[in-house]
């Protein structure tokens, strides 16, 4: 029986969405119990906690579940408001942060998946799309240290887990993200200097191994 202040996270080790939550919790210095889920054989507890989507991550606070990674991150930011905020205070800056985090949600994972799932002309089209997406992001980043300016914030949390997938994307689609979006790669390295990020992100080699496993499972050569 969960205590009022118990925090549990249902997650999957390599999930960039789960990692957003782990980074947010680490930034706020929150203790929690991590519960690795088997996504090929989902537990009753996961299905009960997220009956609508049956997906990770799910954060449970005193037994009450919260689903969808960006919604969880906002929740964390609001509950642990005594710690440095992830979202800015000013309404327009907040709207902007939500816009770019949402853009990441709509675009990055799906396009990245196409890079390893598709071949030939379809893959080439996906590569073009991927570069376009990251050029938009690079435009928003500009010469700032982080997307939020001087401080690590909401957009950074939303995007940074995908940095660990760059090596896999580059290897599968044969291109260099650093060549096309050097500012993004530099930003990724700056983020990795934060313990919350470096301790959370998967090793790029392990991500690539995982992608190879997925390729096999989906019958992609």
């Amino acid at each position: 029986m969960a205590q009022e202040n118990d925090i549990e996270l249902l997650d999957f080790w390599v999930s960039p969405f789960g990692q957003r939550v782990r980074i947010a919790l680490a930034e706020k210095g929150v203790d929690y119990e991590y519960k690795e889920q088997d996504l090929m054989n989902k537990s009753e507890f996961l299905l009960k906690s997220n009956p609508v989507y049956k997906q990770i991550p799910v954060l449970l606070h005193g037994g009450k579940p919260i689903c969808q990674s960006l919604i969880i991150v906002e929740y964390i930011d609001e509950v642990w408001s005594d710690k440095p905020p992830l979202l800015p205070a000013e309404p327009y800056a907040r709207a902007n942060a939500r816009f770019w985090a949402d853009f990441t949600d709509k675009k990055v994972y799906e396009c990245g998946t196409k890079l390893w799932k598709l071949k030939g002309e379809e893959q080439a089209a996906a590569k073009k799309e991927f570069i376009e997406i990251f050029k938009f992001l690079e435009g928003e980043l500009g010469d700032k240290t982080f997307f939020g300016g001087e401080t690590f914030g909401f957009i950074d949390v939303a995007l940074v887990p995908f940095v660990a997938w760059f090596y896999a994307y580059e290897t599968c689609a044969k291109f260099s993200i650093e060549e096309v979006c050097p500012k993004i790669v530099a930003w990724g390295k700056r983020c990795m200097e934060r313990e919350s990020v470096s301790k959370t992100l998967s090793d790029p080699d392990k991500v690539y191994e995982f992608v190879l496993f997925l390729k096999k499972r989906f019958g992609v050569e």
Partner: protein
Amino acid sequence: MASDGLLNGLKLYGSWASPYTHRVQLALKLKGLEFEYIEEDLTNKSTSLLLHNPIYKKVPVLLHGDHSIVESVIILQYIDETWTDNSLLPSDPYERALVRFWCYFIDDKLGTTLGTVFKSAGEEQKKAVSEVHENLKLVEGELQEGVFKGRRFFGGEKIGLLDIVLGCGSYWLSVFEKVADVKLIDSEMFPLFCSWLKDFEEQPEVKEIIPAIDKLLEYAHGVRQLMLSLSSTAGDPTTTTTTITGDDQGSKD
């Protein structure tokens, strides 16, 4: 408290049949905010629209002074956080997370499956209809047993963010039933949802925003004929269809 649109510098680019536009219009009305409205021809988008929403090129777009804000749920939260009287979101963080979750679900699942009902025929449509029913069942369940149990609106005694998001668009249920000749909703299957919807649609601010049903019927009928004829000649649906089938798209975790 009414405020002058010119003083506020509020301008809304929208489309008369777009539920996403209606959401913003309703929120501004509930906050007593006057604004300039610009109707966009979605088959011939203005340079202003493309300038202010270069990435998605969609309505609604809210201009507030120098700022442009896009994506309806983001716009609604911006309005709520800028004009803080008559809150649209609850104050409790857990309830706020639930409201955001259900808003996400409505756009990601309910809106998408409803769009498919409208765009398709035969087996594909049948499947989409049953998915809409599954999605409505989930909403009904929330009204029956969830945090919102026993409330008049999701926001309590007054309309809140989730009411706006779900309500603006639910009128398509009865429109699509007639136009696409399907059974989507009745008070036996979804009693709480139906009584909530009736109450929502009777609110004076809502009545002022939502277009007349016969106008929506005529519009939807025309678009569906066009889409079906295009799909039979292997073409892409026109941009007009995106007002109905979804401007804002959710993504999965």
